[in-house]
């Protein structure tokens, strides 16, 4: 017998209940606004690449931050980790002449160990991750500045490009992808060329490839594997998850390792693209990543959200951040808009959650 309460759901109400809802609406919204008010140059190839690069930087961090937030925790040390990992790579490569690939792998190992330690302290002490990683935020930043000055007498290390020229792993972070394709497109006249025959845009920066790759991996883990099930469960109700045999401590620790990994990817892309490292890099990035995740529809209380949503949140961030300079609006206003969008997104996703639980 059919239950009268089981009425068919409309397509719209189904879509409204998806966690990605806020971010899809947000992306469409900002696109419409910038189509209307921004200079056409924003949607030229160079323009598109400039805001997708900005989106990619936040997006790389957002993937890790999103999984961790769904698991019910925060990592505020992401920004400091970027500065720290970048300095590790640069100092090892430039000051000590160690091959770049060894420096990079070492930086990943050290960063992931620190992420592990963050997670371990959180699960063992049961203190809020907000406080534990706030402590790491200061410790790591201070350590980076102090140790850099001790070893090199400065907090900025340049000359990474020369020291890492031809290194296979460095080019996976600082190089460009699809250069052949872009050359071909320029030859057939789709992309404009400079006078000397090189294309205006020679390729896509590797950080875009990393953003895409990490997003796909994040989606697969969360949607298709048992680990995704465990992450949702751990953030949804830790005690219930434990009762059902989910190793919640291990899940959380691994998620902290994940955010540290993403921060190091970010650092490596910057160091080998700019050719330098600065102990002050990555300032406030942890909050920008959290903004992207929340705009992507994840709940701050954990247990709910998607990686695709977080990546779309990062895209919104990139469009608004860079797009504003293609408009008549002074870019000083960017943070004002960002804060307002964050507030709007939180209110929207809060009402979405209530709807899901009522349905």
């Amino acid at each position: 017998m059919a239950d009268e309460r089981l009425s068919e759901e409309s397509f719209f109400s189904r879509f409204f209940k998806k966690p990605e809802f806020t971010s899809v609406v947000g992306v469409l919204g900002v696109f419409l606004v910038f189509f209307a008010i921004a200079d056409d140059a924003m949607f030229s190839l160079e323009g598109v690449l400039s805001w997708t690069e900005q989106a990619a930087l936040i997006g790389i961090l957002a993937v890790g931050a999103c999984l961790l937030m769904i698991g019910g925790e925060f990592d505020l040390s992401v920004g400091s980790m970027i500065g720290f990992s970048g300095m590790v790579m640069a100092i090892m490569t430039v000051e000590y002449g160690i091959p770049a690939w060894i420096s990079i792998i070492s930086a990943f190992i050290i960063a992931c160990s620190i992420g592990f330690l963050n997670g371990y302290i959180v699960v063992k002490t049961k203190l809020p991750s907000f406080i534990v990683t706030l402590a790491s935020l200061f410790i790591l930043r201070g350590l980076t500045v102090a140790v850099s000055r001790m070893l090199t007498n400065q907090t900025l290390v340049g000359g990474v490009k020369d020291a890492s020229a031809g290194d296979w792993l460095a080019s996976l972070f600082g190089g460009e992808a699809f250069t052949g394709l872009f050359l071909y497109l320029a030859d057939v006249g789709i992309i404009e060329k400079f006078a000397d025959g090189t294309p205006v845009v020679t390729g896509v920066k590797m950080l875009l490839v990393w953003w895409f790759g990490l997003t796909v991996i994040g989606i697969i883990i969360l949607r298709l594997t048992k680990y995704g099930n465990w992450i949702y469960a751990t953030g949804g109700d830790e005690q219930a998850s434990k009762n059902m045999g989910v190793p919640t401590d291990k899940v959380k620790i691994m998620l902290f390792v994940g955010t540290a990994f993403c921060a190091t990817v970010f650092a490596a892309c910057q160091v080998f693209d700019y050719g330098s490292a600065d102990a002050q890099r990555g300032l406030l990035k942890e909050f920008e990543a959290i903004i992207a995740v929340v705009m992507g529809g994840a709940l701050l209380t954990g247990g709910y959200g998607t990686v695709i949503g977080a990546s779309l949140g990062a895209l919104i961030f990139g469009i608004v951040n860079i797009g504003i300079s293609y408009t008549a609006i002074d870019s000083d206003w960017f943070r004002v808009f960002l804060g307002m969008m964050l507030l709007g997104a939180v209110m929207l996703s809060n009402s979405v959650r209530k709807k899901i639980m009522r349905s």
Partner: protein
Amino acid sequence: MMKKPIIEIKDVTKHFGNIIALGGISMDLYPGEVMCLLGDNGAGKSTLIKTLAGVHPKTSGTYKVEGKDVVDPTPEKLLHAGIATVYQDLSTIPLMSISRNFFLGQEQEIEKKWGPFKRLDFKKANKIAFDAMKEIGINIREASQAVGTLSGGERQCLAIAKAVHFGAKVLILDEPTSALGVAQSSMVLKYILQARANNLAVIFITHNVYHAYAVGDRFTILNRGKTFGTYEKNNVTTEELQEKMAGGKVIQDLSGELGEDSKNL
């Protein structure tokens, strides 16, 4: 009885420091019966469940499952031995879908080889979860809807259905009806009877004598960490159970006292 007990505990004690939570509990449980554990707050019901479920190791006494001593109990070990515990509010995750909840922590059945990795087969998961819910008479729109959309009784039934699906021989149900309304409770009670008919052993913890009497075969009363006695259904009435549960204090006395107070309000 000729059958062999599936669970047998004798003089089990549990001390937390110098607090004696269980001061000697003896009880046995046979397949195809519902044993109700009755007791007031603080009688030791929760501690006993957690001891049976392997959360706390016992301090002394014997605990046998199918005639074998349980050594170094952990929740995983006992779950593996077929003893599944359904905690009142802590057995489902509201924000997750029904099928994700159904397989949470026991994903092997829906894992599918995917190159060097394993992925979850949600088509299969949805079908199994949907059918399992249908079998116990709960119509859901689809297994991918959030558990938060289910009623309290349906959530309890989902947790029990999950335990049964994964081969539980003993169900330990911790106050499954105490937060539920009448219709919801009867849904859960009906399901308990269905589990008994399938030869499962059920330990039903409650302080509602009427719920217990509706489905129970035997009743064990706990009082201040000790077994006060075990009674067969045909030798005891609900009034007697109520009285024993209150530690000898007759319920009429209680309502009398309350009556005096309520006049002064």
